């Protein structure tokens, strides 16, 4: 393997030398002109703000309220020493890069980040991203541009799998902390820490429980309508749900198919209708995406199928209200994206100003949201995590609007 690689490199080297005579001379001239015009841009060292270590006036963490089956959320907080209160210091230049800009939850998250920036006396982060959630190369482009700009921190919701490894590593090499939120980098390459909305294993549990509540004790067939096939967060949730479904309590629930609507409304409607056609006994569509769940509810309503096929998953209360009322979507769940953006900004600001370091055991206080701790991420093989939580489950009694 290694030798093959070396040999390959040697061969390429030889070829490159041959090419050089043809291309390299004009390229060097071009390069010199350009180098003469502009200086080096990547020497932005983040000056450490004063790390004020106030002892823990610890407001108890919100995360502890969640009742996880795995139960790892409650254990770590007790071990924490002193929690650093992240306070206002220097203004930082940051990029807030969502999966895409055209889905309601992401501007919500950005409004949380803006709130945090205002509290910390910093300029708001640049809210930029691809228009389409399936546009991975767009995200690579925005990441690369942010590194070129020499920003102090990048806050990223990854819209793919490992495709962002290289640009994230480039950011890390340039000394720029990459704080992921909503959707992490699965391998944690180049990532400082992941601000998780909820525990990913718990998401699987919550989805399985909602499916059981809706389908009743007799169970039945259900299908999953997800976002893009690559989305790191959705894939982790689906895997967690499948694990829960393997348990004896869920034996009557049969997951017949997982389809993808790419977080695009039309695609999601098509995918939902496709499920109806191919599975005559289908009783529930579970969509762990705010776009998919609305699209599915809309499609079932229009087709008059709400009596037989229910919709559930992760949705925004304001978008789901009519379907809760009509009974099409009896129950769904979500967390606050405003809080998620707020917390992500606090973490990024804390790291960029040197008030906290991205390592296991770091405890900090993030403004109105209270105390958190950085731990190893139990839902990934590598990487650090800050767990926000909790889940809110919405239904007719608690429509959330």
């Amino acid at each position: 393997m290694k030798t093959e690689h070396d040999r390959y490199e040697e061969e390429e080297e030889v070829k490159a030398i041959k090419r050089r005579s043809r291309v390299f001379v004009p390229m060097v001239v071009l390069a010199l002109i350009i180098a003469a015009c502009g200086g080096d841009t990547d020497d932005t060292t983040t000056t450490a703000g004063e790390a004020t270590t106030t002892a823990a006036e610890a407001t108890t963490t919100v995360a502890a309220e969640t009742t996880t089956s795995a139960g790892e959320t409650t254990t770590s907080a007790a071990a924490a020493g002193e929690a650093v209160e992240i306070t206002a210091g220097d203004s930082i230049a940051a990029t807030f890069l969502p999966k895409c800009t055209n889905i309601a939850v992401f501007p919500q998250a950005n409004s949380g980040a803006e709130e945090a920036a205002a509290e910390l006396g910093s300029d708001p982060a640049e809210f930029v991203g691809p228009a389409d959630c399936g546009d991975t190369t767009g995200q690579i482009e925005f990441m690369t541009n942010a590194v070129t700009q020499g920003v102090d921190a990048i806050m990223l919701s990854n819209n793919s799998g490992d495709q962002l490894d290289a640009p994230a590593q480039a950011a890390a090499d340039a000394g720029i902390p990459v704080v992921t939120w909503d959707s992490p980098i699965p391998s944690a390459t180049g990532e400082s820490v992941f601000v998780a909305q909820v525990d990913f294993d718990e998401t699987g549990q919550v989805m399985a429980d909602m499916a059981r509540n809706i389908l009743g004790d007799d169970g039945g067939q259900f299908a999953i309508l997800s976002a893009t096939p690559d989305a790191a967060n959705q894939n982790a949730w689906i895997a967690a749900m499948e694990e829960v479904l393997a348990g004896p309590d869920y034996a009557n629930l049969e997951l017949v198919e997982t389809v993808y609507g790419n977080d695009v409304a039309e695609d999601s409607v098509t995918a939902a209708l496709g499920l109806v056609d191919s599975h005559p006994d289908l009783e529930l569509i579970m969509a762990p995406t705010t776009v998919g769940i609305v699209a599915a509810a809309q499609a079932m309503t229009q087709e008059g199928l709400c009596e037989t096929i229910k919709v559930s998953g992760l949705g925004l209360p304001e978008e789901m209200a009519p379907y809760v009322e009509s009974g099409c979507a009896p129950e769904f769940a979500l967390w606050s994206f405003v809080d998620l953006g707020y917390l992500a900004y606090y973490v990024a600001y804390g790291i960029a100003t040197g008030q906290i370091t991205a390592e296991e055991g770091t405890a900090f206080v993030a403004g109105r949201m209270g105390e958190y701790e950085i731990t190893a991420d139990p839902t990934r093989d590598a990487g650090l995590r800050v767990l926000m939580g909790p889940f809110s489950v919405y239904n007719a009694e608690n429509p959330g609007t």
Partner: protein
Amino acid sequence: MRDWAAKHRWESILIIVLAATIVVNVSLSPFYLGFGNFVNLFWLSIEKIIVVIVMTFVIINGEIDLSVASVMGFSAAVMATLYQGGELPFALAILIGIAVGAIAGLLQGLVITRFGLPSLVVTLAGLIGFRGAARVLLEDRSVGDFPEWFESIGQQTLVGPFPVALLLFFVGLALAWVILERSAFGRKVYVIGNSADVARFSGIEVDSVKLRLFVTSGAVAGLAGILFAARVGAVQGTLGETYELDIITMVLLGGVSIFGGSGSMLGVVLALFTVLNIRNGLGLANIDGITQTGVIGLLLIGSVLVPNLAQRYRLRRPRAEAVAHGPP
């Protein structure tokens, strides 16, 4: 100098637009000038601009290849499927991927030349068909975890600060320049583009030239798909979707006539530099992707409209003057 500008009107306009773009970019962002950014600017669109080179030939020849982006996806999908199968050496899977691209081009080229069907229709079918084939192969999966050496082709620098793909682009560009403007084959491409009938009567092997162009177009698209996989590190059935529009836009913006027969490599290179610089400058100024596309669309319309209007104005004026100076 003035002679050159008169003979190369379109190129002169593009040089002015490019210069203006660079000036605006420098004023918009302090990060624009810098060697790293210069490399990134190419690297982020490298697959498109590699295909632009061969698309220039196809359009000058009076044809069009709408299937390039789908062939990119299909070639990469074939490579990824073979890699996942795990039976073939990966290097062989790459070669097969490129060969599949060439075969895709050959099939379309044969249909176009043997049955005399318009390339617009045949390659439109190719666009749909090869994309479908790619999606059938990969379904909704995303294949990744390629060997490290493969991803380093796309992501790491080879000579100085240049990744392999960037070197390939510049080598290909130099080669294409020589072939199009300094070789007999290049002359034939222009002549056929002007009038295939005239070319045929002059004894030019029209079908053979066309076929060779479509095979090259397919092979280069296949290579671009594989370079895309190396850069991004994963292959999906949707890889490269809608890239054909960006590619054709750059060629047309370069002053290549959509009816064939005219255009220059210099014009296309200038257009390509302009589009990349606009995207990069707007990106560094934190302007979102939708606006970037809008600006490039406006540029395309403007660049077609302005010379056209100028020409009309010029045509009308002498007539008006003739009347004014005419006998009373």
